């Protein structure tokens, strides 16, 4: 799976209250959520993301709440993948479960500049920036199977069919 696009950069500790504030959680419609994604930091983010972008961020991206709307909103706004130094566990799973690739790369914010164009190999974690190849941690094993199935519920349906046969 190869994903490419221009980079929008954020710092450390982007929490779920920043990604999608609680007042929007009474809804799950992706298009509604997309309009409010990252609102406390940049109310214009969803417009910038709409052309299809890669987020590059620092430590523990997605820390905080279990709200799956955080992953849903980012994806619906046009975010194709997230590269971060580390991810909060719940967010990482929510992203995979919603088909949003997440790649861990130490020093990501130092290695990649805003507006760079990157090409990511989701399985190997290799990230091409200009003529530089960075080695991140890709998605493998069960997480990859879930991502490829299009999410955990699709995966579950597939497994039940397999088990029945």
């Amino acid at each position, binding site marked *: 799976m190869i994903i490419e696009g221009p980079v929008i950069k954020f710092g450390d500790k982007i929490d779920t209250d920043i990604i999608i504030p609680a007042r929007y959680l009474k809804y799950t419609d992706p298009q509604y959520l997309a309009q409010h994604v990252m609102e406390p930091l940049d109310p214009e983010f969803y417009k910038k993301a709409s052309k299809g972008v890669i987020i590059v961020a620092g430590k523990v991206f997605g820390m905080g709440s279990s709200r*799956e709307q955080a992953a849903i909103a980012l994806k619906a706004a046009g975010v194709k993948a997230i590269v971060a130094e580390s991810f909060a*566990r719940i967010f990482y799973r929510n992203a995979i479960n919603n088909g949003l690739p997440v790649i861990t790369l130490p020093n990501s914010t130092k290695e990649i500049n805003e507006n760079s164009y990157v090409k990511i190999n989701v399985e190997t974690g290799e990230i091409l920036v200009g003529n530089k190849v960075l080695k991140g941690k890709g998605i493998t094993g069960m997480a990859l199977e879930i991502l490829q199935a299009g999410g955990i519920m699709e995966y579950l349906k597939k497994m039940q069919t397999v088990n029945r046969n």
Partner: protein
Amino acid sequence: MSAKTLTEKILSRASGKDVSPGDVIEAKVDLVAFHDLTGYHVIEVMEKANMIKVFDKSKLVIAFDHLAPPPDVRSAEIQGYIRKFVKSEGIPNFYDINYGILHEVMIEQYANPGQVILAADSHTTTSGAVGAFAQGMGASDIAAAVITGKTWLVVPQPFKVVLEGKPAKWITGKDVALKLLGDFKADYFNGMTLEIFVKDPLSFPMDYRATVSNMGIEMNADALMFIPDQETKRYIKEMRGYEPELVTPDNGAKYADEYAIQLDKMEPLVAAPHSVDNVKVVNELEGTPVDQVYIGSCTNGRLSDFEIAAKIMKGKKVKSRCIAIPASYRMFKEALERGYIQTLVDAGCIVTYGTCGPCLGGHFGIAGPGENVVSTSSRNFKGRMGSNEAKVYLSGPAVAAISALEGKITDPRVI
């Protein structure tokens, strides 16, 4: 078989094989739970997948807390949707808006040492107070667990923390949680569990343990568990009338590292805006004006929190707005009988029970632009309690109560 940590012991039993950190496993789940706000999302995922099916009704717990009582029509609609599910599926463990916060319900009535517990809320780690491996997950993961009774996990690396001595005056669980956050920062325990040994079990009661476990998610730990001991036994016996079996680590179990905290040498701590790990000793922030104080939430809405607040507020009047919310009906009633609620109401506080309201900026105490809030809840992220231009300071009940009386951040050690 080698000596096992509590993490390895629980996950070995749940997966039916001998596990080590880093293993990817399929684990059986003992309890699954959700509340109103995430619950409708969980059921929606199940509906969309055409799999409305509960693996074991007796192992699903549902409690309304985030939108309780409903502040608007959409909230009422969400709760109605879940009530319908509860009825059609015949879910016996259901708590409507008149009981309390889900995590409090879990430790009062359900969680036991050695269990694997999942819920659609990040503060599920609270059940680690009784020694359960408890994790929050998103709606899709919880939907899958409700259907199958299983989940997949990466076995985390256990880290040992030892609490020594008796807490100094006004020091409670919140100070221990903030100490760990200040010393290690919010990303250190990524991929790890914390296993906390209390050297003198009775010096650190269940209320304090629940606060520390609750904030395990702020440390980004996979779980935070207190090693079950005589206090665990006492608490469960008192709450539910039976003595639980204690699951404990083996002697000589290997940990990533070990860290000790001297409770008798601690000072009251506060997390300054806008990060849970921006921790300072209270006197560094003294004099900061305070517009609103919130005492409550699944972090600090327990009896000991109200006891401390009442002790400090007795016969006095608050200068800041003060909202106080015991975490459950049980806590509220007990605080009422002991006179704590009367004291708080006389001091000018607004008191109700069983809602998460202000903690997540939901309702019942939204912070406005430019306001400073001292809160006993778990998070002070930008915009968490309402306006992006509000500042939230996190503290234990003593700092919160004295700051409400003085109208500014105050060190409780002046009392």
